[in-house]
């Protein structure tokens, strides 16, 4: 037998027991910290992505603008970086982007807004239950499929109406792009309209207004900031859309405001260059980053406008 008394033995056991628990708690603390840090790193990836985009675009564009003046980039009316007689004017690509986006928005904004008002204020529950997932699926169709549809279905159809329409044109690409954007415009607008408090509608009905009057004169103005955000989202989608245009609008830069002509957009040009085999670091390679920077600034511009609109017209209920 050892000489330890009963009490001593209990002490030794409990001390061992307590320190073990303390050690486990300490370990648990370390584990918690490590996990929290790992989760923080995962969340920071989004910031790193943004920084990466800015750095890469600025860095390559910087090399580009050392050889091509900003003035030439903004005012030259030809974009022929791959030819011997190289010109670096972004205007033809910008005009293509703007014309196709305008056509798309002329389709998407009226239709998208009408659908949003209809679904939010008029449609019976059953119609909404079917229509919303359907619209969501419409937005989920790959854009290359829309491109195929524009080139091989819509263009031949339009050519029956306008026999002189070329095989590649901004019109059919823009129309199909508009259909593609409808779900984005309608779902965001509808969310904004449904967020308008019921009391506003009830007040309007109590004054004897009809559904249509309530929708147009009460709900739509009250949801304006959200609807504006939906339009801005639609514009960003249209400006950044790539495959429909690369397939159906052609890849020839063309300074035109006529949607019946073929023309390349900023995005289509990037695709065209990426399909070829350009040496890394050449001036032609850098052009796609300069074009990308222009595109990024364009979408940033619209996003800032959207942000300001939302701030200015935000209604608090």
């Amino acid at each position, binding site marked *: 037998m050892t000489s330890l008394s009963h009490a001593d033995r209990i002490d030794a056991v409990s001390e061992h027991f307590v320190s073990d628990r303390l050690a486990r708690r300490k370990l*648990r603390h370390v584990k*918690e910290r490590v*996990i*929290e840090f790992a*989760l*923080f*790193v*995962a*969340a*920071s*990836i*989004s*910031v790193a*992505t*943004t920084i*990466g*985009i800015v750095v*890469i675009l600025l860095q390559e564009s910087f090399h580009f603008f050392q050889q091509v003046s900003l003035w030439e980039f903004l005012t030259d009316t030809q974009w022929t970086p791959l030819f011997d007689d190289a010109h670096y004017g972004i205007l033809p690509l910008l005009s293509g982007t703007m014309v196709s986006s305008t056509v798309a928005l002329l389709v998407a904004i009226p239709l998208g807004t*009408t*659908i949003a008002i*209809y679904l939010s204020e*008029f*449609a019976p529950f059953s119609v909404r239950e079917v229509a919303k*997932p*359907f619209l*969501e*699926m419409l937005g*989920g*169709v*790959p854009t*290359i*499929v*829309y491109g*195929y*549809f524009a*080139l*091989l*279905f819509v263009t031949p159809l339009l050519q029956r109406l306008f026999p002189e329409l070329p095989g590649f044109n901004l019109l059919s690409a823009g129309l199909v792009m508009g*259909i593609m954007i*409808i779900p984005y415009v309608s779902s965001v607008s509808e969310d904004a309209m449904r967020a308008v408090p019921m009391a506003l509608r009830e007040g309007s009905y109590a004054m004897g207004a*009809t*559904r*249509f009057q309530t*929708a147009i004169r009460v709900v739509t103005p009250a949801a304006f900031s959200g609807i504006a955000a939906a339009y801005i989202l639609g514009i960003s989608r249209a400006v*950044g859309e*790539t*495959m429909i245009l*690369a*397939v159906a609008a052609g890849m020839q830069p063309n300074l035109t405001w006529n949607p019946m002509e073929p023309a390349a957009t900023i*995005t289509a040009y*990037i*695709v065209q260059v*990426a*399909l070829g085999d350009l040496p*890394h670091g050449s001036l032609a390679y850098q052009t796609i*980053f300069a074009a*990308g920077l222009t*595109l*990024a600034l364009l*979408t940033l511009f619209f996003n800032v406008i959207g942000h300001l609109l939302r701030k200015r017209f935000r209604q608090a209920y």
Partner: protein
Amino acid sequence: MKQTDILEIRALIVSHKRWDVAFGIVGLLSLMVGVLTFAALFVDMALDGAGRLSLDFFTSFPSRKPGQAGILSAWVGSTLVMIVTAAAAVPLGVGAGVYLEEYAPRNWMTDLIEINVTNLAGVPSIIYGLLALGLFVYGLGLGQSILTAGLTLALLILPVVIVATREAIRSIPAAIREGAYALGATKWQVTSNHILPYSLAGILTGVIIGMARAIGETAPVITIGALTFIAFLPAAPLTGDPPAGLFDWILSPFTVMPIQMFNWTSRPEAAFHQNAAAAGLVLVVMTLSMNALAIYIRYRLRRKIKW
């Protein structure tokens, strides 16, 4: 009140109500434009492409002869790229969502991350392609590989996964957390034992929608320089000489379904357009069934959970 006034008011009401009916019809017609376009798209592709859909189409490489060409390298490439995308986007997206909802302190760093996620969702996909070209292909030297494409698409769908995760977590009542904390659970115990299991269905919905988007994305994958004509398969995963050879496939050149379809669409011969239609049909059925699955899970979730 005079009789004529009442009649006038009634006429006014009738004419106003007529606007209600008219708008109801206009609204339905606008919806129909969407429905009809989709129907035309689907039927047109089915008519052109259904003839090409056979087992051979799935087991043949692309070819200069349209009748023998198939999508073997494309669907294998798409599958492998999606594996990389899921492996990167799911842990990062769910982790970021959990951090923002459960851990993040209210400070400028959190605000910055939140604004960032919102803005990234609006960045055109081709810009991600340029980022990947500069960073992954040349900066990190990953080349025009499956790994590069998978990581690019993962960054692209990260906002979708993050937003879905946050929404799913936010719908869990605070009482659940409070109960667990009251029993002495740590933050991670609460998260891993309660928050994650309860938000699983919502997260899954977001992941599926994100993957459906990634599988149809063409522009960023073309921008990193994916080839349009590939007549071989990457080494099958886990077959090379261990240990390094097991992951040979990840650095292999590749093509994906939408690029194969783009390639066939941009050729002048009508026979290739049939191939494009068939590939498009496969692509649409794939993305639509993924979206439908996500919608179904969300619907089930909405009916089942009663806190």
